[in-house]
Structure formats: structure tokens, C-alpha cells
């Protein structure tokens, strides 16, 4: 396996490192609002940044039903992700802690060991 992890968890700041990458990323965050036509969801990242998550066009169902979700998707640009699938994380999640974990996985000291 190459050094690049499979679908790493990211926050808003790190999206730019994965623009156009062929493998998806995991984006854990809080659902803020849906667009009027349900084409995208506005979400808050674990580091506070705002990101747009593009949803598959209807009638395809999206699973963004909970307050906190983990979106697996490809990065379109520094503030947009295209949703492939999503995981329900419930109604309570400490994003600060999630952010600490994300930063740790990119920490050079641990990067090689975790993935």
C-alpha cells in the first residue's frame, strides 16, 4: 500500500490537499442546513469551517438524516465535497475531539503507524 491512506478523515482546512484525488475522503461534521432544492447540504467541519456537500440528484435517496454525519466523498474544491455515502453519527458528537483525532492522524509522528 502506498503512503496515502484510504479515505482519510479530514476537516475543512485539509480538503485542499485532496482536490481531484481519485480516492475519497471522510468528512465528519454537523449538518447545518439543506439547500432549497436539496442539491447540497451545508455542514460545519470539526475545525469550524463551512463545507458544501453535494448530494446525488433526486430521486436518489441520501442518508443525511442525523445531526452529525460522516460523509465519504470526493473533494471537488477547497470547500465542496461530492457525497458517495454517509454514516449516521447520532445527535451528539464532540467535534473538538474529532478534530484532535484528525490532526493526530496527519502528525508525522503517527502517520506511518496508524495507516
Amino acid at each position, binding site marked *: 500500500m502506498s503512503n496515502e491512506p484510504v479515505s482519510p478523515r479530514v476537516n475543512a482546512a485539509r480538503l485542499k490537499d485532496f482536490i481531484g484525488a481519485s480516492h475519497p475522503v471522510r468528512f465528519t461534521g454537523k449538518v447545518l442546513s439543506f439547500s432549497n432544492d436539496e442539491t447540497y447540504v451545508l455542514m460545519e467541519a470539526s475545525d469550524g469551517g463551512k463545507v458544501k456537500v453535494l448530494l446525488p440528484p433526486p430521486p436518489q435517496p441520501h442518508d443525511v438524516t442525523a445531526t452529525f454525519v460522516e460523509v465519504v466523498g470526493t473533494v471537488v474544491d477547497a470547500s465542496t465535497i461530492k457525497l458517495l455515502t454517509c454514516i449516521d453519527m447520532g445527535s451528539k458528537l464532540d467535534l473538538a475531539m474529532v478534530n484532535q*483525532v484528525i490532526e493526530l492522524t496527519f502528525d508525522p509522528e503517527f502517520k506511518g503507524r496508524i495507516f
Partner: protein
Amino acid sequence: MSDLTLSEGICQRLNSGDSDDESLWGSKPTLQFLSIKKVVPGSNPGTANNANATTDRYRIIISDGLHFLQAMLATQLNYLVEDDRIGKNTIALIESMSCQNILDKRLVILLGLRVLQRDAQKVGNPAPLAIPPPQAKTVDASAPIAVEPVSSLAAPQPQSRPTGNRANPVYPIAALTPYQNNWRIKARVVQKSDIRHYSNQRGEGRFFSVTLMDDSGEIKGTAWNAVVDDLFEKLQENRVYFFSKARVNLAKKKFSTVSNDYELSLDRGTEIEECNDADVPVIRYNFVNLSGLPELQKEAVCDVIAIVKEIGDVAEITTRNNKTAQKRDIIVVDNTEFSVRLTLWGKQAEQFSTPLDSVIACKGVRVGDFNGVSLSLLSSGSLVVSPDIPEAHALKGWYMDGGAQTPFKSHSQAGLSSAPGGAVNRNEMRTINDVKDAQLGMSDKVDYFSTRATVMHIKTDNIVYPACPTPQCNKKVTETHDGWRCEKCDRSYEKPEYRYIVQMAVADSTGQIWLSGFNDVGLALFGITGNELRSLQEGDEAKANHTIQKAICTMYNFTCRAAQQTFNDQNRVRYGIQKMQPLDYLAESNAVLALIPLLRSRQAQ
């Protein structure tokens, strides 16, 4: 700079003046502290019997600019030194002091002072005072003392004061120390013990003790052997007396729960006078709500006020020493909507005649962890029925107003006893490998540890046992021709209560061990009672297994107890579960995250 003038000449007067001179000892001189030294307890007279002294004393050299003199700081003022409010060269106004004569030296005791200036220049060039002999005027080395009855009333002996001179001020109990003999306290006997007998290598004897209380605090007083006969009838509970000339010793904390570093020995010379003033000290309580009991450490002593909800019968039980003791359990409740069991012993148990629904205030109640939380009234404690204090009225009011109907929460549910070290102590978390490496429990000592692990396997046969349905009994019952018999309760039951006895293997990333637990562990794992699981096992085995399987792969924080057990000459360590808690993932994550910087800093070294 120093605008303050010291009371010149006072040191001379303090040193050689009358111990009795009210105008001298009641004066409020301004003095400078030339030095303050901590005195190690145990090196002073009066502490000979107990090397286990706890309070520091501070010796201060006081100066009035002309002379300096030794003084001791009363322990209640120790904080002034510890908070650095007084120090070298501090100038202070002495608001209250007393004197003590030790051997032939005079010691001034500073009972109250006001700091005028914390730091100052040393005033004057004070010289030491000559030690005055106790009888300043009449000692003549050559003349035999018997011949001259000439005025020795100039300076009376410190110990044998004429009884007429009883103008001694009343001291607060908190100010009593072994360094002071001329004190008098006015205190209420809040508790009197029975006469007890003892025998040790030196012989045998008897004693009884009283707990004395005034507005400043409490102290225990004990009378021995011959003195018992005189004092036992004289001292009545709840009466107020003046006490003086008892010996102040260091308290033997093992035998007393009274909060005072000292205790009194009431002996032949002790003077006790009844006091009929209106102004008498009232019992001071420091109540804890029943809901707050779990927060107290086991063995902690506190006071409670509550309503009697249920009264058990007096039971006679045999103690470890084969002595019989009377005990009675009562259930009490309070307005925090909790109920708890309170155990009474001895005479208090036998004579308990308080009606249901009355308020009782108990002082000196020890917190135990029998089946959750329990209370036990100490022999040095007291129980007052319907006391005339605001808390009692408030409680009664709440109870009459419908409080009686509230469903009370009990602390004794799934009550796992808290091991010493309390609940999961994060700092003491160990990995399983660590537990094995450290050989916990392998010595004769019992070890306690905490670990976070996942349930890997649960033994399904013998997961429950038939137990005696009597609450608290839990002994295994055997099936006989007429039911299930419990040896401890000495009776048979139609149906037993099935309780869990769980053996399971748990593992973490370092290793795996077997833990055993009882009913509470089973309840936490499976969510159904032992009876229910057993009926499933007999009826719908698939569902029973499914229930058990569901518990696998769940992670908990365990508090465990490791101890050696002998099985037919084989020594094995067995790990028992004291407490089992499901994980609060956020808390656990944060704890682990906190460890990472520690890891980094260690790696950096």
C-alpha cells in the same frame, strides 16, 4: 516606617508578674515578633504518651523593645504563620493571651492578635530577661522553707491555686492545649458512653467517656477506674458543666471520632461544676443530605437528619470475637428523596422507641458501603428525637406536606461495594499485560486495579445459582424435599432467587484475563435478571444464548480486586469485579488524547 510604639516594660511584667493578675493578662500590649519557629510536636511535656502528634506549634520570641520573652502561638492561630500573615519582625496588638508556667520558666500563650505591621524594622535592642524564680520574694536558699511561713502569697504556685480565685475566664474548647493548665470550659455533655471494661497486659480496669461540646468545637473526655464511680452519675447527658483541671492529652484518633486533636483525662483533680446559665452551648450539627452520601468516602463520619420510615426488630448477632451485640436496622428518608439504612447498636438499639414518621438528628454516623450505602450510628454518636432546630422543622413540614408519599430512591441498588481507591481511578488504569507482569494479587496482599477491556467470552454453564430470596442473604440454597433451604436464615423457601455468578474472559490490546463477578455484573451485562435468564435457558435456549452473545464485544471500565486463593494446595490468583461501568466514549477519548502529549514528551527525552 514604624509609627507604632511597642508596649515597653510589658515583657518584664509578663515574665515576673502574677499569673493571676487580670489587669496584666487582660491588657492588650503591642509587641514585635523577633522570630517564629515551628516546634516539632513530641518534644514537649504533655505529649509523652502519644508520638502520633499532628499539630505544629509555633514558638515566637516577643519583644517590647526593651526585653524579649518566649511565647507560644495558640494552634487556632497557626494559619497566621502558614499564610505568612505574621513573620519575622511583625508588630502586632495582642488581643488575648494567657500564661503558663513550665518547670520554672514562664511561657506566654498568644490566643488572639491583630497584625499592625507585617514587616518592620527591629525595634530597640531587646535583652533577654532573667528567669524569675516562682516565689520572687521569699526564696532564701539557706533557710529551711518550713520555718518561714512568710508571705508566699506574693506569687502562688502555679498548680495549687486557692480555690477562691476562680475568676478564670471561660475558654473555648478549640483553644485547649496541653501547654495550658489554667483553663476552664463551659460545655454540654452531648453524649455519654456506657461503662466499659478492658483488660490488657498491665491489668484491667474500666472507663467511660463523654463528648463535650461548646460553640467552638467538641472534645472527648475519659474517666478511668476509681474516677468512674464519682463521675458516671454526676455527668448527665445534655446538661452543661464547667470543667477545669483535667489533663489535656493528644487524642487517640483510633478510639474516637470526635474532631479534636486533643482529649481530656478526667481525674481526681478535675473540677466539674454544674452550670445553670441560660446561655448554654447547643449541639452543633453538620448535616449531610442522604443524596450526598455516596460522595463521602467509606468510613467517613458525618451527621444526618431524617425521618424514620421503617423500624426493624432488635437482633442479636455474634461478632468476630464471639461477643454478642444488639443491633437494629431502621430506614430513614429525607427531603432529597433518598432512603438509607441506619444501624443502631447496643443500648441505642434496645431502647429505640421513637415512633415512625418522627424526625431524628444523628451526630457521629459512619458511612459504610454495605449493599451500596449504609449508615451506622457510632457508640460515640448521639441520636436526638425531634430536636428543636430549624432543619428538623423544615423536614417535618416537608414530610407532612406530601413528602411522605414520594417514592424514595435507595442507594442500595446493584450496589457494588466501592473498593478502596473508589470508582475508576483513571490514573491507576492498567493494561492487562501490566496486571499480569506486576503480579497483582500474587503476594498475600489483596491488590486493586482498574482496566478498560472488552468482553471476549462468557462461561454459559453455571451462570446462575439458586440463592436465598431474603434480601442481603444471597446464600446458596439446596433443594430438599420441602423446598429450598438456606442454612444462614435457617428456613426453607418454595422458590429460590437465581443470581448471577459470571466468569468471563476480557481482553485489551495487551492481553486477556478471566474475571469473575456476581449478580450486579450479570445485570449490567445482560439487562435481565438471573431468574429471567434461567427461565430462558430452560425454555428458549436459542434466545438465552442470543442474550449472552449480545454481551460479547462490549467494552467496559472495570475496577477489580486481585487476591490469592488456595484450591487444594494450588495457589491461584483470582480477579473479582468490584465495579463495572459502561464507557462514556467522550470522556475516554479525552483521557486518551490527554495522554498523547505525555507520550510525546517522553519520546523527546
